[in-house]
């Protein structure tokens, strides 16, 4: 029996087809990798478009005037909009987490006369452009009677935008500024 060892035309065609197939396979893999990168980029761009807020409490204090019936709690906050789209802050809520699982939410104070002029108010609603920040002071009021009854463990400030996205920050220690608590001198007879 004689076995032919010469390469036929059909063999050459088959080899060329095989090489082209391997080349196509590598090319497809490279395309898949590029498509995945493009997908990840598009996904990130899509997620960046969602509202994303960040809140930081810069400073805080309790204004306690002995002659006033109410105490005022001040919070200096910075709100950052990390999204590609502009948004607007519609709500700023302060929650006082107290002992025995009591959560008390004081209201924002509208009283102007004891508001320090040098502290810029954080207006509500507050528009925030894309990738921008805004700082200001929030003032809440609590009646003295309630403030003395509750034992506050943590102060939590939560801001919410028009899309319902929230950001919060908390403070454990809030210094107290006392006014009109000086000891009166006894009248000398």
């Amino acid at each position, binding site marked *: 029996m004689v076995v032919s060892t010469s390469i036929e035309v059909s063999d050459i065609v088959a080899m060329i087809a095989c090489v082209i197939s391997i080349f196509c396979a590598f090319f497809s893999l490279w395309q898949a990798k590029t498509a995945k990168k493009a997908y990840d980029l598009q996904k990130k761009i899509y997620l960046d478009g969602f509202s994303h807020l960040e809140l930081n409490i810069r*400073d805080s204090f309790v204004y*306690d005037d002995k002659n006033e019936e109410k105490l005022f709690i001040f919070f200096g906050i910075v709100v950052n909009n990390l999204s590609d789209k502009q948004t607007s802050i519609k709500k700023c809520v302060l929650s006082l987490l107290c*002992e025995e699982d009591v959560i008390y939410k004081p209201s924002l104070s509208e009283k102007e006369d004891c508001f320090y002029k040098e502290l810029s108010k954080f207006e509500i609603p507050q528009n925030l452009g894309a990738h921008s920040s805004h700082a200001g002071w929030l003032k809440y009021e609590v009646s003295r009677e309630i403030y*003395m009854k509750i*034992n*506050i*463990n*943590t102060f939590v400030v939560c801001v919410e935008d028009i899309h319902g996205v929230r950001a919060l920050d908390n*403070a*454990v*220690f*809030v*210094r*107290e500024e*006392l006014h009109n*608590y000086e000891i009166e001198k006894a009248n000398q007879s």
Partner: protein
Amino acid sequence: MKSKKQTKVDNIPMLTIVSNALVMQKNFADGRPIPLIIIDTTEYTEVRRAIELHAGTNEGEVNFTWGRTKDSKYITLVVEAISPVEIKYMIVFEANMHCSVLDVILKTRLLYIQAGEVGDKISRKLDSPRILFELPITDFESEIKQILEKEKVKSFKRMNVKKRDLKKVIKGFDAEWNSFTAKRFK
């Protein structure tokens, strides 16, 4: 009390506690009890200086990292101050001796730190500069609570409390301790 030999871990000074107390003040932090510790800064004057400088400002930026030794005998708190003074040091709490301090720290998340030396008493050093730290909640807290519970059981066993009475005694102790630490100076 003899001072333990202080060493450094990763070049971070290890500071032991020489004295501790609970401080309550009207119109301050809502009158809650704040734990105060005096740390031994005899060999580390830079830590003492940093505390003195920091005590003069109203705010600062500090990072905290809790840790423990392998045998859970010691609980560590690494204080990394970024502003107003940059410094890093580690405070070492003995789990059985400073059980109460750690418990109040976890409850109030506040801690006063004062620099001092062996033999200092808080009552004699009331005017010394101190810093009030606000500690963030971390996942490590549950581990600290477990260590403190075990130390509590060990302490009562050392006092010859019988095994069958242990639960009742611990419950009673917890009720008393919690009512004491829940008091506010208002």
